[in-house]
């Protein structure tokens, strides 16, 4: 048999069939996190701290426990009982601290106790009877204030080895990288611009609140149904927090109503399991929207200083950035990612970047689509735009002049393989949007963006049925149409119709470990594994054909869904379709399956360029986005509609982040806008039709050339929109969100 490892002409890949889960989702048959129930099920509810920072002196739950409808109350003490593990460290400890407060409540909304009762109403009523005595402590919610010498210390000893001596204990991680000599570079510049920028925390804004159904027996065996981007990480984390063996907890991922990175960890799942273990009954826990805002991961807020030097011809001579990211009361703000991504689109001789991870009294930040990258791009690309304006240079030409390409040394260290940034910039320059005239009051903005993309642990199995159909079991929850993409890739290899393939997101008991659906990795890594699992099955199909024909397996090849003799010398046999082989596979050697597992390393970085037109009302400061074009390298678009959907979704979320979304804290450290009415995510009528251009520069690390597309699309919008608004308003906007009051104030100061 012969199989080409690389493929560039396709039958199925690149077509746009309906998604296999589409009918279930539009008819309501699909089961999401809150849709599962069990006999004897109890309802859980969580008591949350109203204080930003407080010592928990005493919790008295006796009145709640006395109610007949209440079957269990848990606090941190119910997690500390770890029979065979000596105690939790690192991220497990942080997650435990977050899902149930220990000695201190660290932010407004921090869980302090939980109840399981016979109804949701009874559970909520019981919470009111739990008496918590707090000793209120000074708090800090702003990143710059959290680093100041007089800031309250959130947790001593949270910093690791990377933090230089003398920093405030709230600075918990430090990153520095770059190359060349920035001072020498600045000396060569004709113009240097140095400026400071801030962005506020924003929430991923998934429409489905966190929800789960948990059942854990006293024998340490359990079942968990939950909405998650990764059920193996949920399994591993919950098992650690509950002190049970990982394999004894079977986790099933529900359909997911959006995650965007925010469902890559656990919040309520360990609490539901603890309640279930104590009550010895299944427990369902569903967050309301306010709990989602107050206690699940928003992204980090940021404060950044940028300095860039440029020659009159547009050559960047040196670039320097300091990025301070606030990620709540736990280590984890992606200051390192921000620093590494900020200058990554450019081939720079002299570059230096510093990132800080800073703790404050806010909820633990969670990943949000290219975590850390959009903020840095906002700051860097704003300064680039200002340099272009002041030097009278075209912003696309300047980016082309400095663009990284194959062989460029990346600002964060490695040397790029084949990448597609130049192609996106050339497509931007050629796009009619870029040359369309602007009306008075409108401005245009450009930005590039970069994201690493990720491989991750991946395991896929494929089984053929006797009728010639195929089932594919993947371990990555479908957050963006990935079942359609997997089916297309399997169809491509097997040569059977897309509709004859059913792709299932398998539970943790049915497949080996799979990393989370994050890092734009699913179409790349699960796709690669699906292709290789299908090829594995094809090898077996060829073996069966060889047996039937009585020729060596080397003399059989696979073509268009059939085994065929590999050449004239192999013999004269009619093509043998897949279904003819599977029809009697029980008699020719048994079931035919394919499997592949690996941690693929060739994810292939991805770049995009966005063009935005904005109109600013000079009397009210209100911004309308009038035109938007996303251009991004997909490597190879398996299902172009879902690639376009990712591009549009990144732009839509970026528009919200840039214009109106923000976590607003009062002086008391409480979140002021924990509902969608006041947390202003864009509504449909706020958005223009978002045009997309798919650039395809194949990724050498994937058999079909795929690069991840999910995250890069949210990297350029903040900057591109800020540049458009600044150019429309005639004043540089350095603070996000660019809400109308901020723009009107900036216009007055102009």
């Amino acid at each position: 048999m012969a199989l080409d490892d690389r493929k560039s002409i396709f039958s199925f890949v690149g077509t746009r069939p309906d998604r296999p889960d589409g009918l279930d989702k539009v008819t309501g048959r699909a089961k999401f996190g809150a849709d599962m129930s069990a006999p004897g099920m109890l309802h859980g509810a969580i008591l949350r701290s109203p204080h930003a920072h407080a010592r928990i002196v005493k919790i008295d739950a006796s009145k709640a426990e006395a109610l007949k409808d209440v079957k269990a109350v848990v606090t941190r003490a119910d997690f500390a009982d770890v029979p065979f593990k000596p105690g939790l460290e690192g991220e497990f400890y942080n997650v435990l601290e977050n899902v149930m407060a220990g000695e201190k409540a660290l932010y407004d909304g921090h869980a302090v106790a939980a109840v399981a009762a016979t109804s949701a109403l009874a559970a909520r009523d019981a919470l009111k009877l739990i008496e918590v005595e707090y000793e209120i402590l000074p708090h800090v919610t702003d990143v710059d204030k959290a680093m100041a010498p007089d800031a309250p210390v959130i947790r001593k000893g949270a910093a690791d080895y990377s933090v230089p001596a003398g920093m405030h204990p709230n600075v918990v991680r430090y990153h520095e990288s770059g190359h060349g000599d920035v001072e020498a570079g600045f000396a060569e510049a004709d113009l240097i611009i140095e400026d400071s920028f801030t962005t506020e925390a924003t929430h991923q804004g998934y429409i489905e609140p966190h929800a789960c159904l948990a059942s854990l027996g006293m024998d340490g065996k359990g079942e968990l149904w939950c909405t998650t981007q990764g059920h193996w990480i949920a399994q591993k984390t919950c098992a650690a927090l509950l002190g049970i063996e990982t394999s004894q907890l079977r986790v099933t991922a529900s359909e997911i109503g959006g995650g965007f990175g925010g469902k890559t960890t656990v919040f309520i799942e360990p609490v539901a399991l603890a309640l279930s273990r104590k009550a010895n009954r299944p427990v369902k826990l569903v967050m309301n929207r306010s709990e989602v805002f107050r206690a699940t991961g928003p992204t980090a807020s940021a404060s950044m200083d940028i300095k860039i030097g440029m020659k009159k011809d547009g050559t960047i001579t040196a670039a320097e950035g300091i990025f301070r990211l606030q990620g709540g009361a736990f280590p984890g703000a992606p200051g390192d990612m921000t620093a590494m991504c900020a200058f990554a689109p450019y081939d720079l001789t002299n570059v230096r970047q510093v990132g800080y991870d800073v703790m404050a009294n806010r909820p633990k930040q969670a990943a949000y689509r290219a975590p850390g990258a959009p903020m840095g791009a906002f700051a860097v690309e704003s300064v680039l735009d200002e340099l272009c304006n002041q030097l009278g240079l075209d912003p696309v030409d300047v980016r082309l002049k400095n663009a990284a390409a194959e062989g460029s040394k990346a600002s964060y260290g490695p040397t790029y393989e084949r990448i597609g940034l130049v192609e996106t910039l050339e497509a931007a320059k050629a796009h009619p949007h870029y040359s369309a005239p602007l009306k008075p009051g409108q401005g245009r903005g450009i930005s590039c963006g970069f994201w690493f993309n990720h491989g991750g642990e991946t395991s896929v199995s494929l089984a053929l049925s006797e009728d010639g159909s195929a089932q594919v079991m993947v371990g990555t929850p479908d957050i963006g149409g990935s079942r359609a993409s997997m089916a297309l890739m399997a169809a491509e290899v097997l040569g059977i119709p897309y509709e004859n393939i059913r792709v299932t997101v398998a539970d943790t008991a049915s497949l080996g470990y799979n990393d989370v659906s994050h890092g734009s990795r699913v179409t790349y890594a699960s796709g690669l594994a699906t292709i290789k699992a299908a090829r594995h099955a094809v090898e077996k199909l060829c073996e069966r054909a060889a047996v039937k024909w009585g020729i060596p397996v080397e003399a059989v090849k696979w073509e268009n869904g059939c085994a065929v003799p590999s050449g004239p010398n192999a013999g004269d046999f009619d093509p043998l379709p897949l279904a003819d082989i599977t029809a009697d596979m029980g008699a020719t050697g048994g079931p035919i399956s394919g499997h592949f597992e690996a941690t693929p390393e060739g994810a292939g970085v991805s770049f995009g360029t966005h063009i935005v037109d904005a109109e600013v009302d000079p009397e009210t400061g209100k911004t309308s986005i009038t035109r938007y074009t996303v251009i991004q390298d997909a490597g190879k678009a398996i299902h172009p509609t879902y690639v376009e959907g990712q591009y549009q979704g990144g732009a839509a979320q970026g528009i919200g982040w840039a214009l109106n979304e923000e976590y607003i804290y009062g002086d008391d450290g409480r979140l002021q806008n924990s509902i969608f009415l006041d947390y202003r995510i864009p509504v449909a009528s706020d958005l223009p039709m978002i045009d997309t251009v798919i650039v395809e520069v194949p990724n050498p690390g994937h058999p079909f050339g795929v690069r991840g597309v999910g995250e890069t699309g949210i990297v350029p919008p903040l900057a591109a929109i800020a540049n458009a608004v600044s150019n429309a308003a005639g004043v540089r906007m350095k603070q996000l969100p660019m809400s109308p009051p901020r723009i009107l104030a900036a216009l007055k100061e102009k």
Partner: protein
Amino acid sequence: MDYHSPASFAEASALAENATGITRFLAGGTDVLVQLRSELVTPDTLIDIKKIDGVHDVTRNADGSWTLGVAVTGAEMSEHPELGRDWPGVVEAMDLIGSTQVQGRATLTGNLCNGSPAADSVPAMVAAGVTLSVTGPGGTREVAVEDIPTGPGRTSLVRGEVISAVNIPARGENGGDAYQRFIPRTEMDIAVVGVGVNLRLDGDTIAEARVSLGAVAPTVLLVKDAARAIVGTALDDAALEALAAAASAACNPIDDKRGTIEFRTEVAGVLAKRTAKVAYARAKGEQA
């Protein structure tokens, strides 16, 4: 919690008068039920007034005035063939509230009695000169809409009183009204500033005007200085500037998550000008 669905306003009033604890009247429920679900207000007594005869009726009276039942929804107002021709400002203000689903439930009376200074329909009703029939233990009285709210979440209605009808004056000749609000988005949001303007022309000259502001003070304001600034003018630039200055001067807003004092004060003047232009054009019979 006790739930009642009385057959008359007299019965509703008596139920409310005799109830203990927290009482809420339930019409569309777009505030009451949301507050109940989010545990902001858990009433002890819920009096559903949707089942009283006539509460869903939109009636044009012989003198050209309108009587709206208290359970008439925003969607019913928007889809009414005549009401919006007479009072486009009142109808567009109501139509701005919430989503299509909310429009199927929300009512003018509920929007008023919720007591929010940012209620969209209230400035439009104030500008239009709407009155409310209020039924209480002592019978029914008629109250001007601007006299109902007394502060955020509070009204002048006393124990046992319930609004039993909404009375909109006759439109008359050469009149026009309009409502505009500022929100950072395009829909589904709470007014940061709202302006209602209602005027009547004598030729090109404004003979009468009422100007109201929402979301810039503890209650919706009827701004007589703003009306004076345009009465006797043809809404020329000087009149518009005087209108804007009077509107801004009347503002007494707060800084909050929805807007700053400076922003609200400034934008009140901007919106007053824009809204007055629309009302003026409508009074002239132009499409606006």
